[in-house]
Structures are given as C-alpha cells and as structure tokens.
C-alpha cells in the first residue's frame, strides 16, 4: 500500500486518491500486489548485473574514478494509455514538422524574421546559427532526422514540452535496453498486458536515414555512424546503434574525402559513405569549416555536403531550433508554419533578455527554475525552491551580469511514478523523451520513449549526470 496524503501536491500517474490504480496501471497494479517485495528487490539487483554485463554504461566527464557508470534502472514501468499517446503523437508530429520548416526558412528566405514573429538578433547572435548552411538544401529537405521532444506532465491531460532536442538527442539505447531487460525479467507481464513494441526503432532509423540519402547515392546506400570515440560519454549508444542497424561505426580518422565523396578506410581500400549519422557536434564536424583544432571530425566534409555528395544527420546548424530562447517562441513558430494552434503546450517562459521579465525573475528567484539558454544536461541550472540562500545569491549575480544568457520558468509540479525502494513503492518525479524519426516522406514516433526519473525524494532534476535514473516506458495497445 502506498500512503497518500489527502491533497496530493503532484499528479501521481499510478495511483489516484485512496491508493486505487488509475486505468492504465490497473493490470500492472494487480500483478504487483501478488508479487513478493523481496523477490522484486532481487530482480532489481539482477537487472543491474545484466546492465553491467551488457556494458550499458556511460562515461562521466571529470570523474576519473568512476570512468564507467551505470544509469540506475527502476523496474516499475511508466505506463501511458493508447489514447493519451495518440494525442501526444499528433502534437509531437506537428511540432517536429514546424521545427523542420523553421530551419529551412531560417537558412533560406527568413520569412518568420521578416514577419517579425521571431526577433532577428535571436538568430544573428546565435552561436548555433551556421552561415555555411545558408541557401543549402539538405538531401530530401530534412534537417532534423532524429529529434527528442522532452515532455513533462502535471495533470491528467496536462503535458508540456520542456525542451526540444534537435541536434543529437541521446538516450534511445536506454529505451531499447530497458525494454529488453523488462522482457527478460518479467516475460509473464508482457503476456498479461499488451504493450506497444519499441524494438523496431533501429530498423526504422536505418530506413529513415537511407530514405534521406543524396540523389547520386551508391546502389546499396551506405549509412555509417560517426562517433567522437571510445572516451565519449555516449560511446556505448553509438556502438549500440551502429550494431543494431548493421552499419559501420567510424571515427574521423577512418574517413577521407576522395573524388568528391566521403570515404571510409576498409580492409579493401576506401569505400564511399552516403549517409553519415554523426554523433559529433557541429563545432567539431569539420576542422576546415569549423573549429580548426578538432581532431574528431572530417576535414572537408562540409564541402562534400554542400555539393550534395552526402547526407549529414542531423544537418549542421539545427541547434538554433533547440536553443532555449527560441523555445519560448515555439508556439508562434508552430502556428506560423502549420497554420494551426500548437497542440502541445510550452512551459511559460521568461526571457531574461527582456527588462520586465528580468525584473520579475529577480523578484521571484526562489520560486523559479532558471536555465542557461545554451545549456544542457542539467548543468548550470538553478532550481529556486531547492536552492540555499547562498546559491540564490550566487546565481543572482550571474543572472544580473549576463541576463540574455538565461530564461526562467515556473517550478512545474512534475508528475510522479512510483519507484521500488527498500520500503516498497515511493513516488518520484519523471519526464519523458519520445524519439522521433523524420524522413522525406514520413515521421515515425516510437511508442513511449525514455522516462527519466529523479531517484532522490522530492528532487525535480532527472538528468542522469545529476543522479537520475530511467524506467521502461509502456504505451498500451488501444
């Protein structure tokens, strides 16, 4: 039994008042009640061994001691009804279409700037904006082949987009391995409860990338995954995706430009690559065109790209769409390009670059979440209600010094899903990152995505770099 206060502050996705399960959890709840808690805790330890053995680890920057760490896995699934999910997918699809239209526009006619719907300086002063992309049409017209749309929930029908990941969203390997782990540990659950499968993601990814190949693609379109290397924090995922797709995992030093094509050094000489799924940031992609000190990239790849000789996924310069300052304009962007109201809501956002907003944020610092405009991974962010006086003062100084560098949002009452603790189930805050594949002819959204969970009681920060864990995410068959 889970103790419920009379007036829950947060939306509990599993239980309603009185501890009864909500509809999507009815089947799971029945099963859970019949299980022995000790057995489940043992399963939990089994899962950890399974993850270590499989090597599903990530490297943490700046921590020599623990060079490979596990992201903790919680075995209570996060369950979403088929009905909820179809509504969400409509919203996600609309948003992703708008993001691609926005990117095309920004690198071509810039209608949205001319119409005054997005301020020009937001683009002009944006480091993620790449002049090299101006006037360039990516093969198939796709900018963001892979997108992660981070969602949070605050009530029965209240979902918000927390941020868009339009550069190189990571975490999909955890979505797949979490499901694999659950299938191994609890096969009987999947015969009782019909869950929509996620396993065809790698096949869909490959198909989607191949569909975006350049027109003069070789007969068997060759896809390769470009990784910064074995020391990158997400190396496991890069290797995992290449393996699952059955394609080569290349590093910069495996590649050379020969005869106007990007080619990889194989045991039988150089072979052309048609589509490069790169997990290397824009800055490091091409030392001739971007950072000259980059050892991770491919000198001249941008020139081949501009000549239409290769597809780079995601396209360089897509970062302007997941900038947190641009985020605040997303409802306008969706409306501008689709002619419809945005189905998914944005979290209300104060742009600290604006004087009124800054004044408000400084007055209400202890109630707000303040984020760096270009930040990610939960670094450099302030959670007002959880911060000490000292932390607040320090952040106030940073904010006043460089207001345009920050946005602020109300502290959302993030929904909770229970995790298994020593004492049984206990609610913890979660978010959700669904993964979206964009090809010239269609958009594919894998049912579910990656649920991240703050393991610390009361914590609202779910990032794995800050002690968050993950859960398997189930979307029920309708």
């Amino acid at each position, binding site marked *: 039994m889970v103790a419920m206060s009379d007036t829950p502050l947060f939306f509990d996705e599993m239980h309603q008042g009185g501890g009864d399960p909500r509809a999507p959890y009815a089947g799971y709840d029945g099963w859970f009640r019949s299980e022995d808690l000790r057995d489940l805790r043992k399963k939990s330890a089994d899962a950890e061994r399974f993850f*270590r*053995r*499989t*090597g599903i680890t990530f490297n943490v920057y700046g921590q020599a001691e623990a060079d490979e760490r596990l992201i903790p896995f919680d075995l209570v699934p996060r369950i979403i009804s088929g009905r909820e999910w179809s509504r969400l997918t409509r919203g996600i699809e609309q948003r992703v279409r708008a993001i691609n239209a926005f990117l095309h526009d920004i690198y071509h006619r810039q209608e949205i700037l001319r119409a005054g719907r997005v301020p020009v300086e937001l683009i002009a002063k944006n480091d993620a904006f790449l002049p090299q992309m101006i006037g360039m049409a990516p093969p198939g017209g796709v900018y963001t082949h892979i997108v992660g749309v981070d969602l949070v929930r605050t009530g029965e029908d209240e979902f918000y987009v927390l941020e868009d990941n339009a550069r190189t969203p990571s975490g999909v390997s955890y979505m797949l391995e979490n499901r694999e782990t659950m299938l191994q540990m609890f096969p009987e659950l999947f015969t009782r409860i019909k869950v929509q499968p996620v396993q065809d993601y790698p096949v869909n990814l490959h198909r989607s990338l191949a569909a975006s190949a350049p027109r003069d693609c070789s007969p068997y379109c060759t896809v390769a995954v470009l990784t910064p290397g*074995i020391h990158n924090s997400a*190396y496991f995922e890069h*290797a*995992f995706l*290449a*393996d699952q797709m059955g*394609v*080569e*995992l*290349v*590093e910069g*030093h*495996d590649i050379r430009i020969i005869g106007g094509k990007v080619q*990889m*050094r*194989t*045991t*039988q*000489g150089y072979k052309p690559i048609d589509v490069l799924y790169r997990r290397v940031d824009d800055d490091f992609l091409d030392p001739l065109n971007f950072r000259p000190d980059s050892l991770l990239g491919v000198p001249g790849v941008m020139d081949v790209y501009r000549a239409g000789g290769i597809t780079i996924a995601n396209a360089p310069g897509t970062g302007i769409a997941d900038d947190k300052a641009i985020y605040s304009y997303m409802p306008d962007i969706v409306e501008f390009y689709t002619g419809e109201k945005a189905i998914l809501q944005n979290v209300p956002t104060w742009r600290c670059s604006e004087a009124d907003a800054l004044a408000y944020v400084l007055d209400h610092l202890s109630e707000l979440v303040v984020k760096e405009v270009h930040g990610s991974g939960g670094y450099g962010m302030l959670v007002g209600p959880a911060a000490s006086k000292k932390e607040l003062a320090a952040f106030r100084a940073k904010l006043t010094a460089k207001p345009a560098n920050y946005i602020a949002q109300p502290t959302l009452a993030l929904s909770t899903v229970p995790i298994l603790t020593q004492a049984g189930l206990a609610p913890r805050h979660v978010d959700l990152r669904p993964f979206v594949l964009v090809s010239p002819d269609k958009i594919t959204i894998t049912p579910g995505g990656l649920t991240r969970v703050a393991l610390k009681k009361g914590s609202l920060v779910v990032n794995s770099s800050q002690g968050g864990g993950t859960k398997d995410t189930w979307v029920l068959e309708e």
Partner: protein
Amino acid sequence: MLGKTAGGLFWMFRYLERSENTARLIEAGFRIALTRADGDDDEWTSVLQTAAVAHLYFEKHGQIEAARAIDFMLRDMSNPSSVLSAISAARQNARLVRTAITREVWEAVNDTYMVLKQTLARPVSARDLPEVLALIRQQSALVRGAMHGTMLRNDIFDFCRLGTFLERADNTARILDVKYYVLLPSISQIGSSLDNVQWETILRSVAGMRAYRWITQGETSPIGIADFLIFDTRMPRSLAFSVGKIATNLAYLEQAYGTRHPCHEAIDGLSARLRHGTIDRVFEDGLHEFITDFLSDVAKLGHQIETDYRFLG
C-alpha cells in the same frame, strides 16, 4: 569492414591469447617451484624472459622473488603482458569493435574483464593461486566458446583467428627461445632429474604435458619435445599448427576479397619451411638460429598484415 575494426579484432584476440598464455606460464613456474627442493627462484627469471618482460620486472623490483614475480605477471598494470593488462586491453579493443562481434562474445569478454578485475583487485596468495589460474582458463574458454558458437565465418572471424594464432606462434617460439639450451643434445643427459624438470616446464607452459606422453608413449627426449612443439600439426600450440591456421585464414581473406597481398607471400614462405623442414635438420643448422629467425618472421608477418589490411591510416 573498416581497417580499424580489423585491427581491433586482431588485437583483441592477440590479447585474449596472451592473457591465457601468461596464466599458463605462471602455472608452469609455480608447479616447478613446488616440486623443486633447492628453492631458488631461477625459474621465475625464465618465465619473465619468455613473456619478454624481464627487463621491466628488474627495473621495478631489482631482484627475483617468487611472490613478486607472480604478482607482476598476474596483476601489474605496468606489465603489458600481465593477465590483468592483457584482459583490459582485450576488453578495450572489444569495445572498439563492438559492432563486429556478437552480443555473446562481447558479454563473455566484458564478463571476463569484470570477474578478473575483481579477483585480481588484491594480491593473490599462493593458496588461492591454483583456483585463480583455473578461473582465468575457464573465462578464456568461455570467450572462445561464444566466438565459435555465434560468429559468422567471414572476414571478421578471419581477423580474430589471425590475432589468436600469431600470438600463439610467437608465444610457443618464445618458450623454445628461452629454454632451447635444455633441449640441446650436448648439454642434456637423458634421465637427469634437472632436465626432466626443465622439459616438464616446457610442456606445461603449452598445456602439452599429457598430449606429449600420449603421443610418444612415455618416451621423453629433447629432440622429441622440440619436434612436437615445432612440427607436430596435431598439437594446437605448435609452430606448424599455428602457422597452418594463419595460412588458412589468410587464404580465406584472399578468396573473399579477391586480392593477394605481400602477407600471402610471406606466409607461404613460412608454411613451406615448416612443411619441408625436419627436426634433424633444425638441430644441424642450430635450434637457436631457427627460433630466432622464426620469431623475426612472425613479427614481420604481423606488420605486413597490418599494412595490407589497412589497420592504421
């Protein structure tokens, strides 16, 4: 396949083979130490020489001492041939070529690494040593089993096998190189207890003790042992066997890729020498010279394979 991947597979299997060979050397040294009355530690010097790390050991420890030698060969990360170093390097290469090996092989290697890292976190006492060495052997067998049971027989497999047998040929030749003098007819007197012990070490180092007795029906002679380790194609750690496997796998690559490289010429030369050679001839021309030439040829062959299949830029 990427050249880098071929190189990663080659080295992954070289290191796996090396960890197993090192464990076997320790086992042989330990066994000799137990059965020997005089209690000197000379045997450990030849173990270190066989692994080509004696200079590293003496730089670090100055003088030979059984416990230190065992620790150095088992778990010293500054010794590139220690079991722990070799298994870590094998696992690092496995991560690099994760896309080329099956999940079973990867998990077997990763599991081996995790188990040994934990087991070798502290010095191993003489009492626990046999069990630890057995564990290393079992883990090696696990990886080999996963490889044979789950991997496609294609170019990937060929590069794995090339690494295994190049390392093995090198290892057996080194054992002969360090111990060749006990096999020389002028020095060895059949039946003397010292030489029996020395011969036993050689056979134990290549897990060939029982096999040799079985084949020779108990007839032990230095020339017989040398013949067994160099020319016997039934013995899976002999030079002839290892070279035969290298030749087969290079031939598969030639067939699959339709390209003949300088490494194919090199292996043909080496194979011919072992096919047409006899042990009497080897002793006539000098066992030591034969072994030295062989070691140098194997090293050259390794470099040639690396160049021909573009492991590096």
